[in-house]
């Protein structure tokens, strides 16, 4: 079997998910031996920008016309398009306040020049093209990425936990920050897979992985409100990393 042709791309984001790939120090050379990386701008200056791809890994959100065009071009080249990271899957932090007047913000940041910039309200990949597989996380978890690659190479769709961070947090036997300290923990509605990194360090989950499929955001909101937290603050916190996603699920 010939090696699958792979492209790794970044739209607008922090490049953290591509960096996670480069952070697989122990497996990096194994991976490149198993796949044929054709297009990876962050790591190579010799890229084939047009060849058909078996798999396209795309990180970052769509925040400009240029991003949208690039994404469509990638989609046309790729059999399987994988959204890599919370920005690609949900829009990420830059998708906050989608309603805000972007032009005004641009002008505020860059002055008049900003008005000429190519900028659009931030969107997740699935809002622009069809996405075949989502690997969420801000950034993605190395182990999950490696498992996903192993499964894709073996021909299987990877499996991800369908439960929230609380489940992992409980398996680790942490004290509950929400119950025992009344903190604003997003664990109950956030997709697991990070092994409860934050609560495991006694820090409330900020929801960086986006909502779990079955999130009951309205009940969490009500509970936190009963604990005396300010409703607006809770709503804003829950919606930091995946604003639209949480709204849909409450």
């Amino acid at each position, binding site marked *: 079997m010939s090696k699958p042709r792979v492209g790794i791309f970044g739209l607008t984001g922090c490049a953290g998910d591509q960096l996670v790939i480069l952070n697989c120090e122990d497996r990096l050379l194994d991976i490149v031996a198993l796949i044929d990386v054709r297009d990876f701008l962050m790591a190579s200056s010799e890229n084939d920008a047009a060849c058909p791809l078996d798999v396209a890994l795309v990180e970052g959100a769509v925040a400009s016309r240029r991003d949208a065009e690039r994404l469509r071009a990638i989609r046309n080249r790729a059999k399987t398009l994988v959204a890599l990271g919370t920005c690609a899957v949900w829009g990420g932090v830059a998708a906050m306040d989608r309603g805000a007047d972007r032009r005004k913000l641009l002008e505020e940041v860059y002055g008049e020049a900003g008005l000429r910039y190519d900028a659009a309200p931030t969107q997740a990949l699935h809002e622009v093209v069809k996405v075949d597989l989502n690997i969420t996380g801000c950034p993605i978890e190395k182990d999950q990425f490696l498992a996903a690659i192993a499964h894709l190479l*073996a*021909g*299987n*769709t990877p*499996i991800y936990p369908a439960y929230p961070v609380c489940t992992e947090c409980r398996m680790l036997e942490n004290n509950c920050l929400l119950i025992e300290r009344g903190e604003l923990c997003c664990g109950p509605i956030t997709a697991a897979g990070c092994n409860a990194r934050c609560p495991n360090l006694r820090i409330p989950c900020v929801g960086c992985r986006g909502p779990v499929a079955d999130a009951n955001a309205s009940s969490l909101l009500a509970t936190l409100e009963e604990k005396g937290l300010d409703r607006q603050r809770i709503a804003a916190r829950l919606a930091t990393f995946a604003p639209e996603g949480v709204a849909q699920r409450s």
Partner: protein
Amino acid sequence: MARIVRIFKMVEDNYLYTLRFLDDRLAYAFRHQPGQFLMLSVPGAGEMPISISSSPSRPEVLEICVRRVGRVTNALYRLHTNDVVGVRGPYGNGYPIQEMTGHDLLLAAGGLGMAPLRSLLWYALDHRDRFDNITLMYGAKRPDDMLFREELVSLVDRTDVNCLLTVDADPAGTWKNYIGLLPTLFGHAKIEPARTYAAVCGPPVVFKFILQKLLALGFPKNRILMSLERRMKCGVGKCGHCSIGYKYTCLHGPIFTYWDAINLPEMI
């Protein structure tokens, strides 16, 4: 572990696999009842429950009929003859053959529901003297979707079994049997509820309509035998996924009576 010795495409995305245990002793030791299932693993992809479609009256072959739907079934689909899969079992209760002996049989299946019933069908035909009248009702969407089509069509002319096959639609216009939804077949069969055991299997709609029919005919509740499907991870009553009320589909089922269904909430 078992080797795939034959792969036969029955209809699009539904394949019949013939398996043979690598270890001869296991092959001899493996004895199943119609209605039982096995746990089949495709290494790397996972494990899943699959009904045994072959009859214990023909112990030379072990056949399963699998529809491609997800991870494991797709991984199985990518295998070739001579590849090896993991097999555990047989599991589940199977049909109460002893109880059914001496009675009429009504087998009613829709779609993939034929997979477990085929085992019972051939068991009964191979032990024809143990049962009175045997009726098979099987419905598929189109002729091309009918599982075991050749085999079943060849039964239509047999006199020792009343084989009624129907399709919802026949776009090609070549279908020589019935056209219409499964329950309409009741119009073509003479069923005596008082002396019959009914074995039903299919998607939830099939259960719904066939049950209505059977109850209207006055079938005793404990002679309606349903083969159920549930998510399963272990097959041996531990993992909890297949529980219905207080029963485990894998231990107490997959064959349940209609009386069980009344007692166990959310069964159908």
